[in-house]
Each structure stands twice: as structure tokens, then as C-alpha cells.
């Protein structure tokens, strides 16, 4: 468990913010550092700091919760309030007198009902189930005894429902630590351990039919660790049914449940790609370089995370992608990596560009026609997370651990996708959003791209290679892997020879935009053979992909061909491990495929028949 030491600095800063009345940023930061792994003293501090913030300063939805406990919750309530606020709710809480379960529920004009709660939480524990089974009792009698205990709870639920319309939450039994028969209890139906297990199952079989929602106290106690959860001194001296240190865990879970009951559970995940769905950066490391798949520790961790996400998707959670990448790069692993668990069709909206993520998330929400408050953002980069937290406070942001092996549990324990019901409709709803979004995307995508490109104010400078850019041109040819059709490797000296050779046309292209000068971004080497122009080399920097440069350069090549009286352009694509990106480039530019052998394709473009391709919004300056 993490103690005060780990939090003092951050808590002091938050306290400072509150003193200066910067309530919203203080609260955002408090929610960021809050973790169920912090001990009671820290949770108590979270609660106190939250309590010192005037709730009007935060945009929280009011909720009234009535709690009927069989253990003392005095030190827990403040912590529950904080986690409810973190879930977007400001709670008025009524707590019934300790150990008055029946009296409270069976008094129709009693304080529980006059409080008019929206949620009633029966905060019971294993001690409330009578388990007086003698050794060797037969299965029938055990079943009868269990049913009798379940019936006692059903009676309480019926009484509650006769008196109000509140949503009922019922704890199941947290199995105790001590076992009279030791390990043997696992093998016998009449042991207390198994009696309580069967009781929990019997409760599960009937609760939903009674419109009652179980809080899985057994799971929480196991998750926390029963050896700590059951604290006998604190039970005997002050009737704490669970150790105070578990307060954060229980509070977060209950808050998530309440959130779901109010229709406020999350619907959609926004996922980063690099170092979130795979290790490494696809644009730099390429398909071969990213970590994903069997045999490598990090690769397996990412695969497990994808597998978890896939299951969420199957459940009806909408998956979307928001990545800072060239879209074509971002899609490569989805399309071509053999160990990729998630496929493109699992992703309802796929956004990969260089815009800031807050704007992109707004767009995704728009496209899906869901509120920002339905979204959960997952990104390994703390800076991106902080940007989204600050600009879109209604979007939940998971505080991701640095080790990808811990991604699954971090997301799982966040409690953002709780639900009180599930139907095939829910499953299908996810698909429906997806299809809707895809429709919208094809409509919107085009205008978006050209808006973006127009916004860039691009200017291309180009011409024949000369002495001053020869070095840079050679460098580009030597180091490019992705956008390189023939993977030629020419030194400066070799380039110089070509530049002075009449048969060669050596062209360079530079691109500037609003954000800066990209410098020399592409080199094309054409060789004339009779009335045909061969594309010996075409390299381009990946930084300027899909901005219209491909079309622009293509048009220039046609111009060169015409100037020399050539009737065709011949292109060759030689496949390597890294240049799959351009496998279909010639097709895209309306070349005809002449022949395709293993790893090589040859293409032809008739100059007569060709028309210049539209190159979006690049102003040109020939030099």
C-alpha cells in the first residue's frame, strides 16, 4: 500500500491550489493522483481536501444515497463522497443506525424513507448470514438452509420496494479468513467456505430477477487481500467490517456502480497507438521494429492488452483510435502485422493526424454522436493525458502505469465500464455506433483533410538537382526505407555523375508550410531510354505523406516526359521489408500494371492518355 510519503508533495500543491481558490484544477489533480492503492490515511486526506472544495465550483450531478450498514462506516463515508465526486456525482448520504438492518427497512415512515434516497445500499457482510451447518449434512439440507438465508434477504428487498422506488444495491458475503477444517473446507459441501460460496451464487441467481444489484464484496475482499481485509482488532473494538485501508477500493467500486445506475457509465475508449497498443513507434521503427506478439515480453504484454480491449469491444464498448501519426503508417500494423489482435473493423473511428488530441477527441465524439463524458482516454504519454485532462475535464483519463504488462489491470480496475444490465441490444449498440460513424467519416473525412491541408498554406519549391542540394539529396536516398520504390543507394559522387549525364533528369522537391520549412523532402531520378522515361529512383520523407506531394511530383514527372518528347513513364517497385507503404503508389497514380513477379512490379503510364492529378492546394515555385 502506498503511504503519505508518496503523496505529500502532490497533496501540498493541491492544498495550495485550493487556498488560492483554483478549485477546478485542484480537483482535476486530486482525481489524477487518487488511487485505491493508497492507505487509509491518504484516502482520508483525499476526502478532506475534496470536502474543502465548495461543490458549486465543480459540475456535479446530485444524488441521494441511503446506506444500511451492519458494520461501522463512519470513517468510510467521506472517502465515498470523494470517489462519487470523481465519478461526477455530489452525494447526500443518509446512514442508518449501526446494526438496525431490519428495523430500518421495516419502518415505512422511518428516516430511510423520509430521506427519499435514489439508491439504497445494504452494506452487509458474511457475519449477517447464519451458517449453522453440521458436518456431513446432506446436499438437500444445505440447499434448504441456503435458500432460507437468501429468502431473508428477499424479504428485505420486498419490504424496501413496497416503501420506495430506490435502486437497491446488496453486498454479497465476503468469505472469512479462518477455516475450522483448514484447506479441507474446499472439498466439502458443508464447510462454511463452501456454504457461503453457494450462498453467493444463490444470491446471484435471484437478485436481478428482483431488480437488485449485487456489490461483489467477496471479489473486493479477495482483490484487496483477505489477510488484510479482515482485521479482527478493528472489528472487535470498533465494528469495522473491513479494514480501513480498503476504503479506497470499496469507494471506487461503489461510485462506479452508482455512476452506472445513473446512466453515466462510459461508452467509448479513445486509444493511442504507439507504446499503447504496441511497443515502439510505427513511423520510426516500422512493421518489423514494433514490439507485438509472442516470444517477446513487451510484445506479449501489448498483445494481452489488445485482447482485453477486443473483449470490451465485443461487450459493446466502442473502440476508437486517436494517434499522432500519418494515417497510412498508423494503419500498417492493423493491416499487415500478423500478431495484431485488433482489426480495423473493430475500430469505430480511426483518427491519425498531427492535430492536438483534444480537438481530435471532440471530433470523434461528434462523429459518434455521443457526449464527451462518455469517453475514456488511454495513452502512455503523460503529457497527452494532461492535455486532455485540462482541456476536456469531462473525458475520463486513465493514469497508465509505465509497464505495459500492467495496462490491463489499470484499465480494468478503473471501473469506467460498470453496468447494471446487459442485453444483446447493448452488444449491438456498439456495432450500430460504429456503422453510423463510418458513414459520417467518409462524408466528413474528405472535407476535413482539405480543410487541414488548406490550413497548412503549403508551398513547394522544386527544380533540377544542383550542387547545393546534392548532399542532402544523397542523404535522403541513402537513409529512406519506407517511401523508396527501388531502394537505390546513391552516394554524392554517383549522383553527380547522373546529374552531368544527359540521359538523366534529376529533380528535387522542397515543401514549406505554416509551421515551418520541411526542406528537401523528395528526390526523383528519371532515365531516358529512347522515347520512354524510366523512374529509377523516387524517395520521399514520410513527414509529408498524404499532403498532395505525391500527386504534385507525379505531375512534374509528366511535364518532364512531355518536354523530352517521351510517350511513356515506366515505374518499378521492388518490395523490401520496409517499403510496403508504396507498393500501390503507381496504381494510385493511374499507372497500368505490366507485370508482377515475386517482389517486383513494373508499371506503365501513357503520357498521351494521362491528365494531371489534382494536387491539393500546393503553391509551386519552380527554380
Amino acid at each position, binding site marked *: 500500500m502506498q503511504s503519505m510519503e508518496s503523496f505529500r508533495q502532490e497533496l501540498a500543491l493541491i492544498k495550495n491550489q485550493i487556498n488560492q481558490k483554483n478549485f477546478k484544477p485542484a480537483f482535476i489533480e486530486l482525481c489524477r493522483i487518487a488511487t485505491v492503492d493508497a492507505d*487509509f*490515511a491518504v484516502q482520508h*486526506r483525499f476526502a478532506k481536501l475534496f470536502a474543502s472544495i465548495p461543490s458549486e465550483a465543480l459540475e456535479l450531478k446530485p444524488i441521494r444515497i441511503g446506506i444500511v450498514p451492519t458494520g461501522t462506516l463512519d470513517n468510510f463515508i467521506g472517502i465515498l463522497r470523494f470517489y462519487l465526486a470523481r465519478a461526477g456525482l455530489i452525494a447526500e448520504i443518509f446512514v442508518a443506525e449501526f446494526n438496525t438492518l431490519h428495523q430500518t427497512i421495516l419502518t415505512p415512515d422511518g428516516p430511510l424513507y423520509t430521506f427519499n434516497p435514489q439508491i439504497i445500499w445494504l452494506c452487509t457482510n458474511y457475519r449477517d448470514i447464519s451458517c449453522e451447518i453440521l458436518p456431513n449434512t446432506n446436499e438437500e439440507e444445505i440447499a434448504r438452509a441456503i435458500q432460507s438465508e437468501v429468502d431473508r434477504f428477499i424479504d428485505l428487498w420486498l419490504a424496501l420496494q413496497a416503501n420506495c422506488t430506490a435502486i437497491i444495491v446488496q453486498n454479497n458475503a465476503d468469505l472469512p479468513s479462518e477455516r475450522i477444517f483448514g484447506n479441507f473446507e474446499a472439498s466439502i459441501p458443508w464447510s462454511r467456505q463452501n456454504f457461503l460460496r453457494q450462498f453467493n451464487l444463490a444470491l446471484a441467481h435471484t437478485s436481478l430477477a428482483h431488480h437488485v444489484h449485487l456489490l461483489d464484496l467477496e471479489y473486493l475482499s479477495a482483490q484487496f487481500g483477505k489477510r488484510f481485509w479482515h482485521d479482527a*482488532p478493528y472489528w472487535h473494538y470498533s465494528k469495522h467490517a473491513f479494514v480501513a485501508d480498503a476504503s479506497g477500493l470499496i469507494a471506487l467500486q461503489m461510485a462506479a456502480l452508482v455512476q452506472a445506475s445513473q446512466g453515466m457509465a462510459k461508452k467509448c475508449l479513445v486509444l493511442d497507438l504507439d507504446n499503447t497498443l504496441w511497443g515502439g513507434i510505427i513511423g520510426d521503427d516500422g512493421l518489423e521494429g514494433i514490439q507485438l506478439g509472442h516470444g517477446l515480453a513487451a510484445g506479449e504484454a501489448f498483445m494481452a492488452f489488445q485482447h482485453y480491449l477486443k473483449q470490451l469491444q465485443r461487450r459493446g464498448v466502442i473502440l476508437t483510435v486517436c494517434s499522432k501519426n500519418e494515417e497510412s503508417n498508423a494503419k500498417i500494423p492493423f493491416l499487415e502485422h500478423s500478431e495484431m489482435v485488433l482489426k480495423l473493423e473493430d475500430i469505430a473511428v480511426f483518427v491519425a493526424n498531427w492535430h492536438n488530441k483534444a480537438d481530435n477527441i471532440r471530433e470523434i465524439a461528434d462523429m459518434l454522436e455521443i457526449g464527451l463524458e462518455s469517453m475514456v482516454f488511454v495513452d502512455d504519454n503523460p503529457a497527452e493525458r494532461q492535455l486532455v485532462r485540462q482541456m476536456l475535464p469531462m473525458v475520463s483519463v486513465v493514469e497508465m502505469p509505465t509497464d505495459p504488462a500492467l495496462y490491463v489491470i489499470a484499465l480494468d480496475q478503473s471501473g469506467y465500464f460498470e453496468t447494471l444490465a446487459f442485453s444483446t441490444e447493448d452488444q449491438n449498440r456498439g456495432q450500430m455506433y460504429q456503422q453510423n460513424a463510418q458513414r459520417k467519416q467518409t462524408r466528413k473525412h474528405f472535407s476535413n483533410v482539405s480543410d487541414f491541408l488548406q490550413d497548412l498554406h503549403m508551398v513547394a519549391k522544386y527544380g533540377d538537382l544542383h550542387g547545393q542540394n546534392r548532399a542532402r539529396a544523397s542523404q535522403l536516398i541513402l537513409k529512406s526505407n519506407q517511401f523508396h520504390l527501388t531502394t537505390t543507394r546513391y552516394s554524392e559522387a554517383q549522383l553527380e555523375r547522373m546529374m552531368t549525364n544527359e540521359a538523366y533528369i534529376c529533380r528535387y522537391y522542397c515543401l514549406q508550410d505554416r509551421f515551418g520549412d520541411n526542406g528537401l523532402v523528395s528526390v526523383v531520378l528519371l532515365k531516358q531510354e529512347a522515347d520512354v522515361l524510366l523512374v529509377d529512383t523516387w524517395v520521399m520523407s514520410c513527414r509529408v505523406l498524404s499532403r498532395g506531394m505525391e500527386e504534385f511530383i507525379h505531375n512534374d514527372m509528366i511535364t518532364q516526359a512531355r518536354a523530352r518528347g517521351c510517350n511513356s513513364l515506366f515505374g518499378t517497385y521492388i518490395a523490401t521489408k520496409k517499403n510496403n507503404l508504396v507498393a500501390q503508389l503507381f496504381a494510385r497514380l493511374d499507372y497500368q500494371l505490366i507485370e508482377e513477379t515475386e517482389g517486383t512490379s513494373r508499371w506503365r503510364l501513357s503520357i498521351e492518355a494521362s491528365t494531371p492529378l489534382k494536387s491539393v492546394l500546393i503553391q509551386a515555385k519552380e527554380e
Partner: protein
Amino acid sequence: MDNQRIKIMQRLNRVFQEVFDDENLQINEKTNAKDIEEWDSVEHISLVIAIEKEFTIRMNAAEVGKLQNVGGIIDLLIGNQG
């Protein structure tokens, strides 16, 4: 006051400040529940737990309840460490 007591008092003071969310709080040997408004029976338990965490000990809440004041808590803590 000897060195050990002073050190414990400083740490205890910080615990009190954190539990009662008051960075200006200054306790002394005589401080008791009557001196701090929020120090009721519920916060008493929060305080005990926080002290247990800070000094890595288990205290008997009933024992602590019987103590008259902060001085008594320090005695208990010293007793535990000795």
C-alpha cells in the same frame, strides 16, 4: 523535552495537521479532543489509524481513547519503540 520526544512531537504534529486538514495546527503535550473542534469519536479513529501508519505500529484504539492528551500518546509511542 528530550530529543526523542521532540522528534516524535514533530511527526505527530504533521499527522494532526493532515488528519484535520489544518496546516496551521500546532499541538503540544496538553492538547486533547476539547482543543480541536473536529476531534470527535469518528475522527479519533482516523487519527489513530494515521498515527499507526506514521509510526508503523498497531495501537489499541480503546487504550488511546483512555489517554488524556497528546503527551499521553507520545508516552505510548515511546513505550512501543522502547
